[in-house]
């Protein structure tokens, strides 16, 4: 279901800064061409005005229905494709209510005869519809509410943009530690390639100092629009610049100048895509996931990119599919004769999986 966002609330929430989106050189392969704003991002539910209302008893009825639907799932999704179980779905329902209902205390209070009206940010019919999509179509919860809580940020997301993963948070922590000790990198220009919702760019933009900035690029116009929206929500227009295009192409002017380069590029081997849990495989954009035959297409390309784009002493961090890709990537960097990348290190995520390759330019 597409939300109609033509009304005035939307335009007030998004001010004119989209028009300022830089549109540098774009590769010919780009599908989108025409107007600067070809895509209008959706507003997450929690940011919409509470212009709807429902009788408390009706809202409770919906809540009971939603809860029973969630409970009926048991662990069937877990068994079929490692999807969510009832416990997770029930927790999502709680968060859904938090986002939708202005004063959620109503819903859980025993008081009142049910005739009170509760203010909401979406109407009751939409709630039924959205929760059905969550359960029946396995639409990711984050697309249902239109946002994901990532680090201490709440990022807007929608179909067409990858939902940022908790693993990726660690890249910001790594950068944050580094720049807290390195003034030069703190004031330098960074790049986030394949920025998606803008998560990494915003996270890093907030830890850079005066003069420091992030150029974030993505091939997908939806991603660029959503990232721009998020950048604006955190008032980082001066720190994060968005460019549409394929990997390094929009950054040609930065060769040898970057203080840092980070990326979480698509890295899933093509053959694995079919077996993904429904939330991912059926809903998230393939271009954000599919890394080619062995999942390494983009990563290898970005290795060369880091070599070319980083200035001496510059830092890079890449997220990978796991131990195998980490090792292959490190081997590639070491064997590639022109490579000037050093101090290579493999870092594990919180689940203990070797997830990141980091290093510096000589």
């Amino acid at each position, binding site marked *: 279901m597409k939300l109609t966002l033509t009304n005035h609330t939307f335009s007030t929430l998004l001010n004119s800064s989209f028009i300022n989106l830089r549109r540098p050189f774009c590769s010919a392969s780009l599908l989108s061409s025409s107007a600067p704003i070809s895509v209008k991002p959706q507003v997450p539910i929690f940011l919409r005005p509470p212009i709807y209302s429902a009788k408390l008893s009706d809202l409770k009825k919906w809540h009971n229905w939603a809860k029973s639907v969630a409970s009926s799932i048991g662990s069937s999704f877990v068994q079929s494709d*490692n999807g*969510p179980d009832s*416990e*997770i779905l029930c*927790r*999502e329902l709680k*968060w859904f209510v938090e986002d939708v209902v202005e004063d959620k205390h109503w819903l859980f209070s025993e008081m009142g005869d049910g005739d009170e009206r509760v203010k909401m940010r979406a109407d009751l019919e939409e709630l039924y519809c959205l929760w059905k999509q969550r359960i029946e179509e396995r639409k*990711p*919860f*984050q697309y249902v509410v239109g946002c*994901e*809580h*990532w*680090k*201490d*940020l709440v990022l807007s997301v929608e179909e067409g943009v*990858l*939902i940022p*993963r*908790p*693993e990726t*948070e660690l890249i910001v922590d790594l950068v944050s530690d580094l720049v807290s000790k390195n003034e030069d990198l703190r004031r330098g220009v960074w790049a986030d390639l394949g920025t998606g919702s803008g998560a990494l760019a915003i996270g890093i933009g907030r830890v850079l100092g005066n003069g420091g900035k992030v150029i974030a690029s993505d091939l997908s116009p939806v991603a660029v629009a959503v990232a721009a929206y998020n950048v604006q929500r955190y008032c980082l227009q001066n720190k994060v610049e968005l460019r549409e295009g394929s990997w390094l192409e929009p950054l040609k002017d930065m060769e040898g100048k970057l203080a840092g380069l980070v990326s*979480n590029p*698509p*890295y*899933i081997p093509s053959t*694995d895509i079919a077996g*993904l*849990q429904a*939330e*991912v495989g059926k809903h*998230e954009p393939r271009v*954000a*996931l599919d890394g080619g035959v062995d999942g390494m297409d983009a990563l290898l390309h970005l290795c060369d990119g880091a070599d070319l784009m980083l200035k001496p002493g510059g830092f890079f961090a890449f*997220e*990978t*599919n*796991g131990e195998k890709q980490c090792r292959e990537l490190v081997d590639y960097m070491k064997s590639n004769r022109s490579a000037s990348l050093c101090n290579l290190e493999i870092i594990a*995520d*919180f*689940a*203990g*999986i070797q*997830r990141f390759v980091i290093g510096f330019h000589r």
Partner: protein
Amino acid sequence: MSHFLRKSLSSFLYRPTLFCCRHFSHSHPHNTTSLFSPTWLSRNSYTNGLSPTRARFWASQPAVTEPSTSDGLTVEGIISNNWTILDENDGDWKSHAAAIAQSITLIKRRLQWKKLKVRLNMLSVQLNKEDLWDDPVRAGKINREHGSLLGKMKEVNGLERELLEHIEMIKLAREENHEELELESMKALLNMRRNAKEKEIEALLSEEHDSCSCYIEVQAGAGGTESMDWASMIMQMYKSWAQQRGYKVTVMEEMPGEVAGIKRATIKVDGEFAFGYAKSEIGVHRLVRISPFDSNKRRHTSFAAVAVIPNLGDQSSSVQINESDLRIERFRASGAGGQHVNTTESAVKITHIPTGVTATCQNERSQHQNKASAMAVLQSRLNQLEMARQAQLNSQHTQSLTDITWGSQIRSYVLHPYRMVKDLRTNYEVSDADSVLEGDLDGFIMSYLSASLDKNEDDA
């Protein structure tokens, strides 16, 4: 009087003038004609300046005389009259007076009144010694302690006098048939009753961390589903209790049982004095009932252990944690992770490697926030450990769940064959078990807190 004000008063106490002014403006809001001329009041008000000689003069005055009304009624007298204490709204003056007298008595117990008097006398003797100021540092110390104790004593005496004054007024008004005056005095008495109650609670909760927020942890004892169900009932009881008190409750961690209930859970209770009250609940709670999980309908006894930890927040007593001592794990993670998985479950478990202390949080919407919350729990657990290590005293309030032995039963909840909840420490009991399980715990808590005072006094 606010905590702060009282503190600043006692630290200013060696400036008698300042002290007297503030003190009396507080406890005698309408003190124009004192009905029972406290001799030392007039004497003190002559004292001026800060010179050692002045202080000596001032300190040498007899500390107090027990106040009474013109017909000889004293606060102790009121207590021994055993007047029934009714609700604030429908009490007569005797009820109010008895309630106030009770509060005063409790405050005195808290201050260890007899000991305080002895100490005060001793300090007065010291202050009167000729050579006192030969050692100015020591003299200053003695002077300050003397001032602080005297201040406390005067505050209590002030309350006593105020109470008797109101009573005298009411009696007088009645004799003279002066309705307006009677009404006014009743109002003042009621006001005082409320103030005294507040002070009483402040006095009950004046240990080091009492005013802090806290964590409450509940763990099921052996016995499978029945005990896990009991643990969740107990947890529910605390949640309700805390909410009724107006505290904010946040679930930090919950390990559900396989069939029902919880194996273990931690909640955070935010609000003033949360720790002070909740610490009364530390120990093992026992349940006797017909288990709904037993198809043979037999009677079962189960146990749940409760630990309460003050949340010291950013206070300086926080233990410094080295980032490198931490192991941070994704809790319940499985599979390939990363782009393969979309889950809203981002629970984090943090282990402090040197101590083995762990904390988890799964309730927040981002991993980062889960990590932050788990860190907060970890921090408070480590603080707790450190407190216990440093102090080794105060033992009952610093136990963590693992230290609570299953022998240390504090309360028993019987739902069958009769219904009763009984505290084994105070013998306080209630037959309406349901109301207790719904969070009506204040009776238990208050009786425990005041019993602890008695115990301290006995020890003294």
